[in-house]
């Protein structure tokens, strides 16, 4: 049975499994019709790629494309860094409201040594001990939202 065009193309592109590649190779070696078809398909593809070269020449990204990408990355980095600082500051403020400045000794290390999210992860179990799991989760959620966790009191969570 002769391989179809898709199989011949896949064979030409070396995209078949090793076994299938070998089977087609053996078939082509003994089949003039498929051998000729493969040759024609290959020439056709080369011709298409030659035509595509014109498109490639005409269609290129702007010269400052990489600069734009890097600027976007750095802008995002600055924004993330700023959000992180704000979050950290809020955590420090709010935890000191509950526990006073001695909280840092309990958590191990000063506030400056921690990333905001890490700090919050460390503080949550401690908050849970004092105010309960549900209330601690609410406080953490409020801090993440950037709100004042004392609003939880008004909402009746604690």
């Amino acid at each position: 049975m002769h391989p179809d065009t898709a199989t011949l193309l896949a064979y030409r592109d070396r995209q078949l499994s090793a076994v299938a590649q070998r089977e087609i190779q053996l078939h082509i070696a003994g089949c003039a019709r498929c051998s000729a078809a493969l040759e024609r398909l290959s020439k056709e593809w080369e011709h298409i790629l030659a035509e595509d070269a014109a498109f490639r020449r005409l269609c290129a990204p702007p010269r400052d494309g990489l600069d734009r990408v890097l600027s976007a990355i750095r802008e995002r980095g600055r924004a993330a860094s700023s959000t992180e600082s704000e979050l950290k500051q809020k955590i420090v403020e709010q935890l000191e409201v509950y526990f006073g400045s001695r909280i840092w000794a309990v958590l191990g290390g000063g506030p400056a040594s921690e990333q905001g999210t890490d700090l919050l992860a460390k503080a949550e179990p401690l908050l849970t001990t004092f105010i309960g799991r549900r209330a601690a989760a609410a406080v953490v959620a409020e801090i993440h939202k950037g709100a004042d966790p004392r609003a939880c009191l008004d909402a009746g969570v604690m």
Partner: protein
Amino acid sequence: MPPLPEATGSRAEEIEREVVRLYGEFAEGMFRYAFVLLANREAAQDALQEAFLRYFMARSGNRSIERPQAWLFRVLRNYLLDQLKASSQRKEVDLAQMRNYPDMRQDPESEFRLEQIVRSLRELLSPRELECFRLRAEGLRYEEIAEVLEVRPGTVGALLARAQKKLRQSSVKPGASGNEQAGYPVPESECPYAS
């Protein structure tokens, strides 16, 4: 270029170097792929930028990306599909829109030629065939194309065979897409399907 923010540290610099390397390897192909789908230089560049930005964010989150080329093309494609959907909802005509974003680097004749090539390809091939052909022409393996298009590798082979056949057949009806230069004419004598 703006300085790297201190807070991002050496890890960010390392990923940034990775992005620079990948941009050098794949940006041109990704841009062509985006351009064929959107027919708009600015939109294609925005899509390219978004894909690399998402790569940076993913790697910053310690995500391991085994095949960056396929990953970048897949993210790019998802973004492009969103853009096309949004564009269709706004009832925009993309080819007409392309003329509103002249690129000073290109002369009008080149831009016209490019527009013709893209129009010709889009008329000739189905969207799936066009994507498949473009990805293969950019050097992606069948497996990678399948990953990008979310189809089976066997489907990739069938799509490519159909695309190649249509591209060959366009030579039978030169100018059918509006201009002989715009298509991918194949001399009939070299065509395996010619009777």
